């Protein structure tokens, strides 16, 4: 009989992040995503450690692969990886690199780190899941500075035209883009036919509501505003 592990909650995430010692932790980047990723795994995503191969599981793509400490902490809290694994963060033979790799950690959906790749892959996943008539949804997390990469705008434009209502892009906005987004990040998505919601990226109820907005026939963008990058 499998041992029953004590459930870990949001209050444990700080400790779990602290276990991941390394020279380059991208700390501000990691912390900016913490609440969004927690709400996704705790309240929104239909996935679980034992569903890693379930074709109908929801997919979470950390496109902004920098600073995965919050991601790894949530994965540990939810049982995808062990807490002890966190202590290996960044080591030569660890499965937990400073940029995540799907081939090393079951439950991680893509390998990421270079900016501007996740949303394009997410569009392909959403197309594939729609073609299979799967109920699964794709949630892709990008950063506001990541949106500087032009590849995102190829994906944003096409997803709107393709009416990918099984695709959600959450943009964590800590104002780290060098030139900013006049008119707001949401406007970039709305122009291309997405529904958009802007929320407090630290307010869990607000974040959860944003992910559940009715959006018939349209992809959905959630702009999660957090404190400015120091």
């Amino acid at each position: 009989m499998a041992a029953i592990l004590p459930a870990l909650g949001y209050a444990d995430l700080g400790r779990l992040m602290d276990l991941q010692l390394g020279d380059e932790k991208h700390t501000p980047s990691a912390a900016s995503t913490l609440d969004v990723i927690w709400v996704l795994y705790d309240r929104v995503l239909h996935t679980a450690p034992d569903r890693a191969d379930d074709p109908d599981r929801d997919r979470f793509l950390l496109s902004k692969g920098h600073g995965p400490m919050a991601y790894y902490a949530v994965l540990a809290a939810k049982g995808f990886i062990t807490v002890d694994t966190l202590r290996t963060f960044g080591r030569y033979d660890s499965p937990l690199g400073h940029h995540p790799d799907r081939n090393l950690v079951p439950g991680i959906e893509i390998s990421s780190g270079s900016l501007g790749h996740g949303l394009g892959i997410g569009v392909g996943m959403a197309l594939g899941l729609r073609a299979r008539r799967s109920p699964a949804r794709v949630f892709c997390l990008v950063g506001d500075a990541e949106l500087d990469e032009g590849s995102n705008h190829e994906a944003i434009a096409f997803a709107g035209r393709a009416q990918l209502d099984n695709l959600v892009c959450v943009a964590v906005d800590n104002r780290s883009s060098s030139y900013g987004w006049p008119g707001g990040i949401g406007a970039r998505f709305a122009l291309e036919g997405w529904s958009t919601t802007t929320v407090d990226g630290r307010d869990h109820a607000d974040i959860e509501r944003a992910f559940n907005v009715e959006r018939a026939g349209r992809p959905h963008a959630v702009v999660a505003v957090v404190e400015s990058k120091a």
Partner: protein
Amino acid sequence: MTATMRERFYATAAELVESDGRIAVVFADIGTGKLGAIERKHADRVVNVGIREQLMIGVASGLALTGFRPIVHSFAPFVVERPFEMLKLDLGHVDVGAILVSVGASYDTNAAAYGRTHQAPEDVAVVAALPGWRICVPGHPAEADALLRAAAQTDERVYVRLSEQSNSLARPITTGRLHVERHGRHATVIAAGPLLDATLEATVDLDVTVLYMTTARPFDADTLRASLTGDLMVLVEPYQAGTSSAEVSAALADVPHRIAAIGVPNVEHRKYGTWQEHNAAHGLDARGIRGRILRALRDA
């Protein structure tokens, strides 16, 4: 008139989509007229993303991650060079398969006249710089068809380089293997893809072994070693000269040998015209190939 590799590809891709529910086709406006009918019928997995080549590769990755076998199509510069990091990461690092099918080769299918923007003689070297890719350089539409169908049955990362140039006859090729065209005594010549006919014409009275290469990577070291004749190796490739030199050297690491690498020189070639004129300028017609081989034999 025989269909070109490109025409044959469009027909085969449509057939594969019809017969195999795993097959998806992703393209970026190139081929719209030819793929339009199958796109309308199977809009869920035949996808034109518009002129968005980075997205084209990302979408292929996502489709592969959801169980499809994507065929990706455009001109060589737009399927290999512009989205190169997507090949490296979205396919390679993520570790999923796709079949990239390019047209235009080094400078054909109008790419000669378009100029440098559409010419891609470096494409094979660029793809070969990434691990885990099978690179196919068919020399006849029937070979292109066979290589594509074989690729569709796997989950590998495959690059199929279609060309407007063609040999007069298809060979009974096997994916991954060099085809022994003829045996000789004084040198070993490897002719890649559509340069086989010119190579055979160039060597018609020379006593040399001629091997025919339609899979450039992984390189078939076994057949080369089994067929080796003399110490002179001549590579005749319709893309950047020397693209396969290191593979030959590795295959013959314990065998003294010399290599003459014939191909497109790595220079900024600001010329238009036709692929025939480019071949002649680079010494890739029968006359030019013969001259290079004779010089190499004299230097022996």
